[in-house]
């Protein structure tokens, strides 16, 4: 029988089919009761009389590709049967949405374009569950979103549910920084954003110093800042890479964090190394959300930043020598703790070992903040 004949005798003799065409051109036929479950298809059939034959196939919206269409039709095929119990439907739904996030996004979009509200609700709720509790980086990673917000927009004091004084300090700093950033807005360009991601860990360290320092002694020169960042990256990469290689990949929480962070970091090759430090810090603080978005612009002298950077890499090198994972964990925790509390004293200790080549020394002010001296005599 020709297709035309089939179309003519369809209502009497055989099961009715609706013809659907996806945006890539492929046409398929679907049982009528299944297809009519979708309001959009239903509308096309009833109001416009489309879908009765191959030539008059209903053109589906662009967001519906064949893979998604088959998923949606599976859903319709199950739910359009009237006799099912609520429990059955619920358990089908739960199994149905078990898929990777990418497909879930596509499915949500496709269902929305077909106006299939129950499926849109189901998938939206699943996506909401995925998004809940994640940090912006994680969300960007999951959904492949561009990291295109300026530093200023990211400076949000998000939450401080653990009454952490360090976080309060950070938040106060954020507010201060936001004001200062407004003045510097003209100097910003895209290049800065790209490099920004790597340096969060060091910036976090810097902020503690900066927070203790009353006034800024930084050079507000974006160019030199960029140069220093690049230099710092290379330096950090070489030393931190060693550190990672030497860490045992045994399943302790620290390494898992590093590992997943490396996979997750997207911006640049070699970034994984720096994320190690950052996530260690996050782990210890247990405040991912507060610190993640804080790309605090440093206003500290770039030379000082160099010092601190070398201190960090020294610590990493030190910790990399240990091979037992527990000791590594302890060492890193120790490091993080020292960062928080004994920072000025520790700096003094390190610098007094003579690791620094340049004749720049630090000393403590009366209020405990660091002060840089031009030459060693003033120590």
């Amino acid at each position, binding site marked *: 029988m020709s297709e035309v004949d089939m179309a003519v005798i369809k209502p009497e003799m055989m099961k009715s089919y609706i013809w659907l065409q996806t945006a890539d051109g492929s046409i398929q036929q679907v049982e009528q009761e299944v297809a009519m479950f979708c309001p959009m298809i239903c509308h096309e059939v009833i109001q416009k009389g489309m879908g009765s034959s191959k030539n008059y196939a209903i053109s589906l919206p662009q967001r519906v590709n064949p893979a998604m269409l088959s998923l949606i039709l599976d859903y319709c095929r199950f739910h359009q049967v009237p006799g099912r119990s609520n429990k059955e439907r619920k358990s089908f739904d739960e199994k149905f949405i078990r898929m990777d996030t990418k497909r879930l*996004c596509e499915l949500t979009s496709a269902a929305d374009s077909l106006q299939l509200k129950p499926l849109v609700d189901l998938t939206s709720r699943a996506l*909401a569950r995925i998004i809940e509790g994640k940090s912006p980086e994680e969300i960007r990673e999951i959904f492949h*979103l561009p990291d295109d917000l300026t530093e200023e927009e990211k400076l949000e004091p998000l939450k401080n549910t653990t009454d952490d004084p360090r976080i309060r300090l950070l938040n106060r700093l954020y*507010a201060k920084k936001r004001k200062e950033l407004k003045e510097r807005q003209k100097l910003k360009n895209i290049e800065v954003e790209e490099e920004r991601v790597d340096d969060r860990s060091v910036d976090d360290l810097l902020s503690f110093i900066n927070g203790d320092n009353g006034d800024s002694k930084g050079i507000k020169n974006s160019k030199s800042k960029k140069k220093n960042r690049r230099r710092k990256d290379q330096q950090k990469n070489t030393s931190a890479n060693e550190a990672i290689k030497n860490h045992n990949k045994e399943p302790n929480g620290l390494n898992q964090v590093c590992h997943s962070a*490396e996979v997750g970091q*997207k911006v640049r090759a070699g970034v994984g190394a720096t994320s190690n430090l950052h996530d260690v810090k996050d782990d210890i603080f247990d405040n991912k959300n507060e610190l993640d978005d804080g790309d605090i612009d440093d206003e500290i002298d770039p030379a000082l930043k160099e010092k601190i950077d070398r201190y960090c890499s020294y610590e990493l090198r030190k910790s990399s020598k240990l091979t037992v994972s527990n000791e590594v964990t302890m060492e890193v925790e120790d490091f993080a703790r020292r960062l928080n509390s004994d920072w000025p004293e520790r700096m003094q200790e390190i610098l007094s070992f003579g690791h620094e080549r340049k004749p720049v020394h630090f000393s403590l002010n009366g209020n405990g903040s660091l002060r840089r001296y031009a030459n060693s005599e003033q120590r």
Partner: protein
Amino acid sequence: MIGEAKVGNEDLNLCFEKLMMVAAGNSEGVKMNGVGITEWKDIPVELLLRIVSLLDDQTAIVASSVCSGWRDAICLGLTQLCLSWCRKNMNNLVLSLAPKFTRLQTLILRQENPQLEDNAVETISKFCHDLQDLDLSKSFKLSDRSLYALAHGCPNLKKLNISGCTSFSDEALAYLTNFCRKLKILNLCGCVKAATDHALQAIGRNCNMLQSLNLGWCDNVGDLGVMSLAYGCHDLRCLDLCGCVRITDDSVIALANECLHLRSLGLYYCRNITDRAMYSLAHSRVKNKGLTWESSMKGRYEDDGLKSLNISQCTALTPSAVQALCDTFPALHTCSGRHSLVMSGCLNLTSVHCACAVQAHRTFNTIFHTAH
């Protein structure tokens, strides 16, 4: 050791590849997967907002700082926000969020411990002009500056809760009502300095759409204020005067005569209330029965009139007056299921029953307590 290094390199390669995919943009992604969206940022704004509406407020704020597409969508679409979960940083959060979320219509800033300061409210007034519902309860630190800012910035306010803000003055509140004329629900519970007769006169003059007013524990409220309120706000439905000890029968009589839609009245601790007030309420109902002829014909008899009345500690009342009231308003109940006529502490009113309670009493012949 070497093996681990290799694994590390692979991960880095993966990162790099992902970067390339993202950087290459939309077109590459589409080619790789055929037709349909592959980049989540192409998702329509309504769909994204629908998903964000399923998230809790904290996550919604996080989502607005993910990427520029999400930021724009959320900043344009977010209309409700609650920040009461903040325990320490609510002020900073408001300062940074208010300029972003300019379409907010509902903002809940009720605090467990006072954090909010005037600059935050000023920022809200500067950016969120669509605000209709604002909850600033327990903001002990706020001063009149906030009220003046709100007056200028948020003229569309319909619902305002400033209960517990003890530093507000009645001048500032009167000023606010001059600008926020659309107020429907106003909660001044505990605002002793703000809720005075002067302020109530201003409210009566300006906020003619007012439906609900809470003046709990505002002991500066007197008859003059409540009467001005009654004459000005004819649409008043809920009024709580608990703790307003200076009130006398004149207030209630004015309310009874002017506010024909009154559904809920609280007179807890208003010791000056006597039977006169009760009879006036009953009488107004009888008068109005004629006016609501259609509604009574349609069988919505119970929908009109007082539904809830609290006369606890009004020890001057006698059973006959209150019983007359209870008979006049069928929606007032003393039965345990729908208890809405509260008479705690009025030991002489134990004999007052609603119609259904009497029925039950007769049927089951049990002792029925109306006061508890």
